[in-house]
């Protein structure tokens, strides 16, 4: 198995500072409506390099989902500078630079599994034969080859979410944005999918921004962990995860893992997340 991620990260270190995939400087976002002003993000500074797996973690209301949506051009910052691949998020979106995975699978029930994965390819005008080949390839990658012609409601929650990931990867974006994709699943399924996602990342060398509530999930998956806190939404600390790039589930009991988890917890406490 090619460790594309490992190679990519090493190449980054060797080549020196490369153009950031995501560059945020002083990004603020204020929601106005119904007489209320909610500061979802206050002065966020963040740089994400190619090949990074960055987790955004924090309590409810800390702005992690808002930040993700701002990168995706689903929300617009009120102030500050936000660049994706050196362009505005709007331009990046129009160039289809990223894949988005939501908290719910959001599959279309009138389409079979394979046609769901082909949806973005259809919209982007990829010819039929290639669409089918690519969809089949990514369904295979997420381990759902036997379910190609089933319908979403015939699959379990975890399987549906895997289809959603295959769909996000189908047009091979360099950037993957994931909003608590495994939040609705039970712990055992979650562990399996975490491992799966980790291996996928290593094979495809995609840059991933991953929003989560779970400390162990963040530590297991990421190369960097961004701890945020609420009221107003801001970054408390960015923790570099020095664990080896090649990981399996057994890693989670090692002292090194627990040390990183402890740092994350302390950062959360510092941000008053437990108050």
């Amino acid at each position, binding site marked *: 198995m090619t460790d594309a991620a490992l190679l990519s990260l090493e190449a980054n270190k060797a080549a020196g500072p490369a153009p950031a995939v995501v560059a945020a400087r002083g990004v603020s976002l204020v929601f106005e409506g119904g007489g209320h002003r909610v500061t979802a993000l206050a002065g966020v500074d963040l740089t994400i390099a190619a090949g990074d797996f960055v987790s955004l973690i924090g309590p409810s209301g800390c702005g992690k989902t808002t930040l993700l949506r701002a990168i995706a051009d689903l929300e617009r910052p009120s102030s500050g500078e936000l660049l994706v691949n050196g362009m505005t998020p709007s331009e990046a979106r129009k160039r289809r630079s990223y894949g988005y995975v939501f908290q719910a699978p*959001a599959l279309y029930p009138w389409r079979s599994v394979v046609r769901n994965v082909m949806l973005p390819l259809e919209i982007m005008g990829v010819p039929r034969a290639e669409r089918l080949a690519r969809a089949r390839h990514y369904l295979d990658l997420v381990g759902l080859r036997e379910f190609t012609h089933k319908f979403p409601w015939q699959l379990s929650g975890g399987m549906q979410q895997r289809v959603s990931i295959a769909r996000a990867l189908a047009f091979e974006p360099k950037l993957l944005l994931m909003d608590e994709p495994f939040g609705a699943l039970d712990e055992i399924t979650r562990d399996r999918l975490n491992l799966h996602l980790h291996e996928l990342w290593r094979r495809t060398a995609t840059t991933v921004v991953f929003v989560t509530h779970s400390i162990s999930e963040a530590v297991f998956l990421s190369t960097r962990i961004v701890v945020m806190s609420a009221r107003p939404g801001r970054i408390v600390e960015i923790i570099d995860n020095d664990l080896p790039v090649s990981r399996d589930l057994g890693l989670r009991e090692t002292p090194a893992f627990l040390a990183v988890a402890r740092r994350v917890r302390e950062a959360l406490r510092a941000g008053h997340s437990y108050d």
Partner: protein
Amino acid sequence: MKRAPLYWATLGLIAATLARWLMSADKIGATLAAALIAVFALFRAMVGFARAEGWFARLATPVIFGLLLLWLWEMLVIGFAVPFVLLPPPSAIARAFANHLALLAQDFAQTYLHAVIAGYALGCGAGFLVALAIDRSPFLKHGLLPMGNMISAMPIVGIAPIMVMWFGFDWPSKAAVVVVMTFFPMLVNTTAGLAEAGTIETDLMRTYAASYGTTLLKLRLPAALPHIFTALKLNSTLALIGAVVAEFFGTPILGMGFRISTEAAKMNLDLVWATITVAALAGSLSFGALALLERLITFWHPSFRGSS
């Protein structure tokens, strides 16, 4: 499957036929005996089927009930010599059906094939297109939808005399009534359906930088289909009612509504019932066909997945 209800049903049907035959042979005592056996057996059959499961049992109960009613109708009307001008027996209606087949067919063509089909297609089509047209304007939606709901609740059939004045006595004026009756339910339901697409699914389309048209075609219209079918089914009933009732207001010498109102005045109740039967069949078959189409096309909707 338990056999008992089936045997009771067979016994009941045989006894019922026997009773009818005995009645026309004037054997009162035997008739009564056979009738009692028939009623008892058919009731046992119904109760038995009602307790059973499976598609056959589910179908059998209402069918037996319907047959029982028809038979009772026949027996009581003939047995008590109810005047023909009050209530003709089913056998007389069947005879009228056979005798006037050509006439009934012509009426059917005039009312259903012309007025209903044309009006339905135009009304539903217009409602759908207008819903698409106002889709991008919340202002127009807020203005038109309350009115649409209001008008759907009014006795629209009343515009029939005005349509006659504008479009003449023949079927176009009836079609016009149908158009007005079917337009608003289609408009309201299509708009409601277009709002069904979830926020997440719509956001997904945005991340693909999909155009308005692509989002409409690939997401919002398929998601709207359940609501659209609700309107299509409702409109099939409304269209038939509209066309028939519009003919009560005046029509050339043809049409189901015309036939019903004039033959009722002439006391030819058997022909009236025959026409009503044609109308009932047309209505239920149209609805059934649409329901079948709905099942084929929106097979994915939770209501068809037997989740309850």
